[in-house]
């Protein structure tokens, strides 16, 4: 009985300390020091939040860079992957469909040139980044839709490319939101 | 015992064992070995399935060969159980044969019991109680364990010890203990019986060698638990395979599952475990040591500290004359002459060695010329012995201080250099004996305690095994140190009293160490009882034998070292066969798993790295291998894994290499060979 009473008292102290004080202090410090990050790296354009730098959104406009395929249709409130296994016929079907989409939108792209990340769904369904190869394949389409030259677009990609951290961690890629914002800026919007 | 000592596996023992292996099929016996009991249950199930393959569901038609397969599995399982029983039976067999011969020496014993009025009555020995007084005449068998209270006689103990030379037993002192079943050769003894019927040494020995009173040792118990745990794990593994197969669309038949289960559970060690224990005890007995429990033998393997008496154990015990040292004005020659005279009729080893050494120095006397001289034997009072010649010459040799006193009492003078020379001898570990004639000290006999040959090497081995040796001696510290150095023991206690031994044991035990010691005297009894391993000498007092947990029938204290090795060997054999047994499973999996799932996942054929002919031959080959490995390992279980003193890590690596890696490889070869045979016999596609 003594122990039960002690356990209950410990519960009260610890919930307050660990479940409330701790996250609230971190929230306070986070909001103070890093308000942009702490609120989700939201991007405002013309006064309106257009999305998060870190969250993929559904972009089908031929004049913008597209994100990777999403198994959850870019639901910012419902992340997830396809969870299709490597021998699942549904996986083959899904990738096949994605290849067709890529070929349709970017005519003339040989299948062998398509990087796997461009046609395979991301883990979160919200992957904000694409590989350089993915971005490059989209250049002719965007050029055609926007009138910007391919060189300008290539330069945009190069400028926004993120390399490996310390040369060993991660892989070369571009953030799509960043790229599209730069693209829009280039077009003067 | 003597005749059975070297007895191998005689035909009679094997025949007995075969009969016993069937008798042991009784489930009430089998259940004591859970692993083998599981095999027996499996056997019963496949036996039922041999009559009706669809007994527990399934749709096997006559063309499926299912019945033939079930019969095949049933037979192999039956043989597996029999092999296990046979291993145990054969290990017990040797003991039983010994017990039989011991029993013979026990039957028909009668006793001459003293009535309260002092007269004697003849009664069967089996009715003797503790405290009864019996009289034994020359040529009669001693009816029970007891203590001699009157008389002195030579006793033939060969029935028990195998040693044919008779030993002297007499009232008082440390040689008063007699054992029932031995034979009095001369004189007459009056004995007080010290054991009730059924509790005599002979009874205990019979039940020990028979294995009747064998209880699982703590370590064996721990291993049994682990083996039972592994068996349970494999039961779970195998039981859950059926639902997995059902999910995949093709159920696996029960015989195959039982075959897999039997292959996986540690049957090899399960079958041999008790045989190893019995054989270990048996090895101890063949060393003429009676261990009162298996626990004592195992404890011997763990011993950290070995306490050995110097005299008789480390050294030959008989101090031998090695040098004559004259004192005062006396010459070598005159000293030697007196020394020989004083020792002429001295039958002790010391005395004889003096005569021997004198002979080497060119001095010898013929006994017959002194037949009228009076021989003075050594006594504890005078601490000297010698000869009184008819011409009045008195020669004595004895402890230096006793002689000094003796000379001073007679008004003689002690030469000045006696003291210095005495202490030189003592310092070197020798024993000085002063030699005196009349009241004149002639000089000293340097008695040397000789370290037994090979002792130094043995202590070195013990050190490698991590065992510390402590020498106990009544000698002074100087002497003790010299001998200790010569023998290579790690430590010594000089001027040791029985309490010192006791204290040492308690100190070591307080540090968590296990201590072994040997002893024979009544005053050793408490220490023998306190020690983790107490080896009592058979020549010792009943109290000592009662206190120790082992009795050495040859009364050789160095046996402790052998017992330690046997204890270790016992554990190593268990460990090695367990490891082997578990390592075997790897190959069995590679045989059976592809075979089981071939229908559902044909690609798993890639795991059939042994290229076994058919799924059924794969399963049967693994099962047959599993069965025949048991009799193949019986000799190893009986003999024990060879033990060589080396440090623990190298021994571990050596045994892992042989029994672990070997245990992985052997079944790959064995199963493949059996598969080839099955295929050649055309049974692969039953």
């Amino acid at each position, binding site marked *: 009985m003594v122990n039960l009473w002690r*356990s209950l008292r410990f519960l009260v102290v610890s919930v307050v300390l660990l479940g409330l004080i701790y996250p609230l202090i971190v929230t306070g410090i986070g909001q103070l020091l890093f308000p942009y990050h702490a609120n989700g790296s939201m991007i405002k354009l013309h006064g309106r939040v257009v999305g998060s730098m870190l*969250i993929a959104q559904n972009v089908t406009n031929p004049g913008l860079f597209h994100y990777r395929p999403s198994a959850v249709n870019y639901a910012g409130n419902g992340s997830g992957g396809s969870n299709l296994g490597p021998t699942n016929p549904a996986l083959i079907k899904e990738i096949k469909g994605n290849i067709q989409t890529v070929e349709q939108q970017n005519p003339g792209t040989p299948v062998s040139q398509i990087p796997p990340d461009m046609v395979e769904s991301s883990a979160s369904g919200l992957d904000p980044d694409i590989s350089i190869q993915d971005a490059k394949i989209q250049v002719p389409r965007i050029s055609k839709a926007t009138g910007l030259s391919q060189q300008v677009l290539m330069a945009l990609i190069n400028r926004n490319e993120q390399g490996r951290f310390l040369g060993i961690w*991660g892989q070369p890629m571009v953030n799509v939101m960043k790229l599209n914002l730069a693209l829009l800026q280039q077009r003067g919007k | 015992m003597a005749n059975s000592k070297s007895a191998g596996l005689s035909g009679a023992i094997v025949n007995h064992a075969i009969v016993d292996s069937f008798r042991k099929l009784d489930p009430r016996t089998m259940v004591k070995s859970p692993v083998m009991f599981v095999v027996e249950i499996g056997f019963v199930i496949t036996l039922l399935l041999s009559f009706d393959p669809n007994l527990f569901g399934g749709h096997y038609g006559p063309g499926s060969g299912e019945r033939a397969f079930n019969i095949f599995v049933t037979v192999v399982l039956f043989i597996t159980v029999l092999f296990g029983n046979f291993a145990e039976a054969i290990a017990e067999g040797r003991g039983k044969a010994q017990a039989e011969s011991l029993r013979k020496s026990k039957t028909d014993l009668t006793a001459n019991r003293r009535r309260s009025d002092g007269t004697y009555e003849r009664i069967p020995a089996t009715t003797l109680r503790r405290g009864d007084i019996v009289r034994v005449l020359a040529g009669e068998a001693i009816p029970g364990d007891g203590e001699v209270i009157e008389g002195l006689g030579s006793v033939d103990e060969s029935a028990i010890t195998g040693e044919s030379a008779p030993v002297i037993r007499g009232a008082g002192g440390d040689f008063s203990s007699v054992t029932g079943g031995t034979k009095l050769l001369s004189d007459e003894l009056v004995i007080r019986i010290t054991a009730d019927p059924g509790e005599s040494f002979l009874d205990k020995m019979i039940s020990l060698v028979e294995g009747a009173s064998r209880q699982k040792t703590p370590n064996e118990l721990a291993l049994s638990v682990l083996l039972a745990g592994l068996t349970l794990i494999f039961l779970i593994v195998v039981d859950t395979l059926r639902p997995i197969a059902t999910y995949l669309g093709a159920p696996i038949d029960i015989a195959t599952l039982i075959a897999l289960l039997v292959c996986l559970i540690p049957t090899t060690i399960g079958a041999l475990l008790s045989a190893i224990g019995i054989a270990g005890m048996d090895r101890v007995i063949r060393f003429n040591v009676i261990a009162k429990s298996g626990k004592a033998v195992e404890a011997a393997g763990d011993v950290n500290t070995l306490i050995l008496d110097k005299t008789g154990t480390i050294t030959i015990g008989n101090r031998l004359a090695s040098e004559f040292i004259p004192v005062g004005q006396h010459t070598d020659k005159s000293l030697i002459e007196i020394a020989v005279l004083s020792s002429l009729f001295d039958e002790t080893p010391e005395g004889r060695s003096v005569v021997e050494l004198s002979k080497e120095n060119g001095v010898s006397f013929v006994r017959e010329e002194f037949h009228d001289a009076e021989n003075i034997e050594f006594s504890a009072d005078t601490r000297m012995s010698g000869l009184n010649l008819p011409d009045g010459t008195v020669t004595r040799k004895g402890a230096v201080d006793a002689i000094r006193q003796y000379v001073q009492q007679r008004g003689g003078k002690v030469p000045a250099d006696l003291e210095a020379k005495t202490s030189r001898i003592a310092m070197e570990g020798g024993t000085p004996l002063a030699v005196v004639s009349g009241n004149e000290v002639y000089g000293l006999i340097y008695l040397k305690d000789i370290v037994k040959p090979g002792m130094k090497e043995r202590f070195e081995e013990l050190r490698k095994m991590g065992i510390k040796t402590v020498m106990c001696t009544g000698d002074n510290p100087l002497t003790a140190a010299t001998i200790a150095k010569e023998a290579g023991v790690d430590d010594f206690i000089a001027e040791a009293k029985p309490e010192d031994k006791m204290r040492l044991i308690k100190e070591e035990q307080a540090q968590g160490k296990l201590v072994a010691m040997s002893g024979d005297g009544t005053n050793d009894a408490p220490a023998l009882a306190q020690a983790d391993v107490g080896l009592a000498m058979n020549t010792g007092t009943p109290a000592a034998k009662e206190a120790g947990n082992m009795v050495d029938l040859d009364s050789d204290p160095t046996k402790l070292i052998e017992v330690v090795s046997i204890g270790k060997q016992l554990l190593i054999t268990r460990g090695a066969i367990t490891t082997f047994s578990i390592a075997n499973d790897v190959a069995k999996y590679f045989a059976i798993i592809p075979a089981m799932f071939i229908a559902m996942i044909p690609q798993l054929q890639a795991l059939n790295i042994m290229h076994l002919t058919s799924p059924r031959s794969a399963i049967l080959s693994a099962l047959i291998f599993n069965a025949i490995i048991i009799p193949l390992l019986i000799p190893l279980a009986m003999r024990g894994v060879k033990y060589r003193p080396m440090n623990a890590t190298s021994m571990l690596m050596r045994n892992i290499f042989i029994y672990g890696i070997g245990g992985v490889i052997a079944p790959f070869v064995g199963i493949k060979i059996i598969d080839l045979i099955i295929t050649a016999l055309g049974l692969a596609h039953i």
Partner: protein
Amino acid sequence: MTFAGTIGILAVVALILALAIPMGGYIYRVFTGQRNWFEPVYAPVERVIYKFVGINPDAEMDWKSYAKSWLLVQFVMALFVYIIFVLQGHLPINPDHIKGMSWDLAFNTAASFITNTNWQNYAGEQSMSYLGQMAAITYLQFTSAAAGVVAVIAFVRGMVANKGKTLGNFWVDYVKVHTRILLPLAFLFAIVFVGLGLPETLHGAQIAHTLQGGTQTISRGPVASLEAIKQLGTNGGGYFNANSAHPFEDPTALTTVLEILAMALIPAALVTTFGKFIKDRKQAAVLYVFLTGLLLAGAFTVYASESAGDPLVHHLLGIGGGNMEGKEVRFGQSLSSIFVAATTAFTTGAVNTMHDSLTPLGGMVPIVFMMFNSVFGGIGVGLLNILMFLIIAVFLSGLMVGRTPEIFGKKIEAREIKLATAAMLVHPFVILVPTAIALVTKAGTSSMANPGLHGFSEVLYAFTSGAANNGSAFAGLNGNTVFYNVAIGLVMLFGRYVSMVAMFAMAGSLVKKSVVPESAGTLRTNTFSFGGVFLAVIIIVGALTFFPAVAVGPIGEHLQMIAGQLAK
């Protein structure tokens, strides 16, 4: 596989070891009551807690009262969070108006978080209020980790005591893990995480008007504070459904490296702590070598397999390269692979990759690591499992050298073997039996998302994860059914408490024994030879127990895949 990727994996592991070793020394000082720099901060806080809770910090407890308090306080906590989960719809700090959970989901979630498993049959952004995320999830992520740490500390105390009686004071230990280890580290990591992009806010979801004119609801919340303790406590329960694959939980390559570091830090440090307790550095070094070897072997197996990709995709569709299904671009193959290995080695269960979409051999590594459950293992419990396997290894090896086995001077006898066997037995039992049941019931098979052998692997993974208190999943399996909620809930509880109570009892038995001094005949456990035997015992016991299941699951699927066969 690339050179940079290979170096990347090695660098992560080197970083872990470099920080874990000093950390281990610090933990040792905490549990031996030594003062440290922040004493003026810690001591008063602890005194207040002792006073409020009613703890006499000088009392000593034997194993029974230690274990009783340990169990009771966890039971109370589990009950508390169960109530929050069921009633969260009516409780405050719930800006997204999330409803209460069903009884079975609440049971599963409470069992999951109290056992440090963090198996989630719910999607955080949709089914957990901010209050739940903080006062239940983040809260238990502290306390369940702390429970693991104190258990192993108590055990080690029992192991080194010479004819002792007590294992320390549970309450003092429990408070100190929080105040001196978990909280300071969590603060540090949480603030760094916010700086690197993890949200930490009480604002509700953001409605965004996307670049091409659509709308998107972006969930967020107090993520960073949860993320820090989620990894430090080897919990793994994510704020979002996608766990550390979600860009808000793990936005960059650097954060994922830090997250791997955080999850590995304390389990790896405890090896050093253990070495300090037994005063044998070399023992710790030997363990490090073999455990790190296993970790790397696993990581590189995943890396090789994922980089090689799916031959079916190669041949049927002509897409070359590695497998990117269920992976994030910012991590690539290399950081995804080490994360897969680390999260199951340290039994955290966080994922930055969808394990269900791994290649068969890539998916086999996490399954096998969870089956071993002792490749460093979860916080506290991992070392306990390692010690359990050490005891079994010592027992077998001791026999092989002809001595009653002893570990660190303590004799291993029937009672210890009984308890170790019980602890060892639970694991296969709670993995294989429920898996078998699931396979032959409609309730079990209807939740599978993938057909054929992969479907089997999903179920096997689920129960293995539950039993190992890992929490990661082949997430295609729909776990939010009454069957799986209850079954996995029970598996998690048995998987943790049966073996840990057995280990407490063993500590109680070991503490009383005297320490036998070492001699030349003692089998030294701090040699690489013995380390090899120890490794062999883990692998052989694991392999013998689970080989059939793994052969039918990942190995079978791999063989089918390379034979060009799709599942039916």
